């Protein structure tokens, strides 16, 4: 579904990704772990189309398309979803208007009839109930005055409504209390199926107790230095990233 080959990227003169390769297949959940500054968020944002990074080499293919040729909005409509580490606050723009605009942009692109206000509200209310999210979310400004936990829940709500093929969740667990973490994990577990894929970008093993990954990768200095199964995350929790990095030198 997604194939990244030898990806190099920088911001200004600072190299961040240094030859990263990764293959993700349908039905898989991959966890990308690594210390601060290892390039995890950069990878997530490059896949979503953030042009503040300069991709100097490498390729990303998604559903046999060259992803780098698509704009961020085209990537989204093609089924790529990025759950932001710091979801942006847009005061004055109603959450429900925002979600409806996003949903209809995708439907239009796919040649499906746009959803009307009534159908949208019905769908949104059902999703909110299922995810145990406060119904007032819909009437509030996008992330306006939301706590850290509410923002992350809002990302899960958007993901669920947009039904992407690949969801990249960038440190969705950071700043969450245990109840919020469970809500987020519930959302991801309900979302995952044999036809989609999830990339979990995280520092900690904690999230992986609730969402079982198929593969775990350790990112350091802009490349994957080790890959394994769920047990790798547990091992890292004990040994830490420095020991892992030292052993690879």
């Amino acid at each position, binding site marked *: 579904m997604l194939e990244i080959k030898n990806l190099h990227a920088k911001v200004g003169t600072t190299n961040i990704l240094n030859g990263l390769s990764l293959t993700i297949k349908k039905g898989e959940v991959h966890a990308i772990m690594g210390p601060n500054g290892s390039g995890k968020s950069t990878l997530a944002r490059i896949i979503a189309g953030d042009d503040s990074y300069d991709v100097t080499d490498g390729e990303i293919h998604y559903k046999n398309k060259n992803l780098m040729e698509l704009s*961020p909005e085209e990537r989204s409509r093609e089924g790529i979803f*990025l759950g932001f580490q710091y979801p942006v606050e847009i*005061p004055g723009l109603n959450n429900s208007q925002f979600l409806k*605009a*996003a949903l209809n942009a995708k439907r239009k692109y796919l040649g499906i009839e746009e959803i009307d206000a009534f159908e949208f509200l019905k769908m949104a209310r059902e999703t909110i109930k299922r995810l145990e999210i406060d119904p007032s979310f819909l009437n509030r400004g996008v992330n306006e005055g939301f706590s850290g936990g509410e923002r992350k829940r809002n990302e899960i709500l958007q993901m669920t409504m947009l039904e992407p093929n690949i969801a990249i969740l960038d440190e969705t667990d950071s700043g969450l209390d245990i109840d919020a973490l469970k809500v987020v994990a519930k959302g991801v577990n309900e979302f995952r199926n044999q036809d989609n894929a999830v990339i979990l970008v995280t520092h900690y093993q904690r999230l992986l107790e609730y969402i079982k990954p198929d593969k775990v990768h350790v990112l350091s200095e802009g490349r994957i230095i080790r890959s394994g199964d769920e047990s790798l995350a547990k091992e890292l929790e004990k040994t830490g990233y420095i020991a892992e990095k030292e052993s690879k030198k």
Partner: protein
Amino acid sequence: MSAQISLELLASATKKLTQGELSETRSNALSNLRDSEMPSTKNEEWQYTDISSVFALCEKSLHETSKKVKSTVKKENCIAGEIDAHWIMINNGTIDTQEVKKLRKIGVYVSLLSKNLDNTEVIIDDSLSSLNAVLMSDAIKITISSEAENKKPIGILFDNDTSLSNHASNFRCILEVKNNANISIIHAHTTKINAPHFTNSVVQINLGKNSHVEYLKLQNYSPKQTLIEKSIINLDLNASLNYTSVDIGGQLTRADIVINFNDKHANAIINGVYIAGQNQHIDNHISANHYIGSTQSSQNFYGVIGGNGRCVFNGKALVCEGAIGTNANQYNHNLLISENAEINTKPELEIYNDDVKCSHGTTVGQLDKNALFYMQSRGIDEDIAQQLLTKTFITRILNGIKIPCVKNSLENLITNKLQKLSR
């Protein structure tokens, strides 16, 4: 003396206008013009707004004042057709008498000033208001009685149809809001004709004791037109005003809004939105004069500027000696959405008193790239995302307009304007 407009032409033009009750006013105004000069960029208050080009239009129109220009604008074809209000259409000092009769029934009295001068002060405190008094064919006086019904707003449409080749208009509207009255006013400047035109407008508003006015000024002129408007608003004891100006059209717009707090517990919210695109210039000068204490003013202006648009904001609060307990603030926020957009902004406080609460601030910024990317990453096109973000920037001002029937028309006008801006 005015260097820009021939006084001989002005004198001869004013002679041709209806004299009677207004002749003394005209003669005083003409004397004022002999002793004063038209504003130029040499004056601090006008340093960013050059209006020299409009005087040629004014002179051109002086040769035409003998022509009586009749409106060709039909109510149904302009904003008056979209907003459910009691519309008073004003065209070169003529008003629709049928509508005037209807208004009487709801306690709103409309007349030509020349027919109902009755000690009304015609303000001529600078060269432009003097020019207005010299050349206005008449003024409209609207009296809102204490018992006036406020089910629908009163709409005042300054119709600037230039199809009969009139190059300048001088409108004056005097609004008397009696004690305890509560009314909503929509004051619209709009036209569908795109010919160079200069409108010099003066609006005098007196709010009586305990009165409340919701006021929306909407300027949506076509791209070759100039509007210079001075609004002088007097607030009596416990009067309150919620004023919003929306400027989206025209080539050159200058608005001077002067609010005089003449008695205690008067308060005014003076909000504004301006959206300027290619070749547009919008200048807002606001003065809140707190002559008496325990009064409150709040100025909040939000601007969106694209293309080579140029805007000016000067919000001032004057707190006079003895005006204890004044609360005044001015805020101006600007979004520049193109490289060549320009804003000259200056919030000002002039305080001659202790024990007051005053604040001011201004910001100039660009669209948040991270927010744009966030929206794009949800499938929303970049230009739509830009429009939505821009709209949210001014939403708080639009939400402050408490005249529900204008909501849809205003939304449409602003959405269309923002679409043009992002192209």
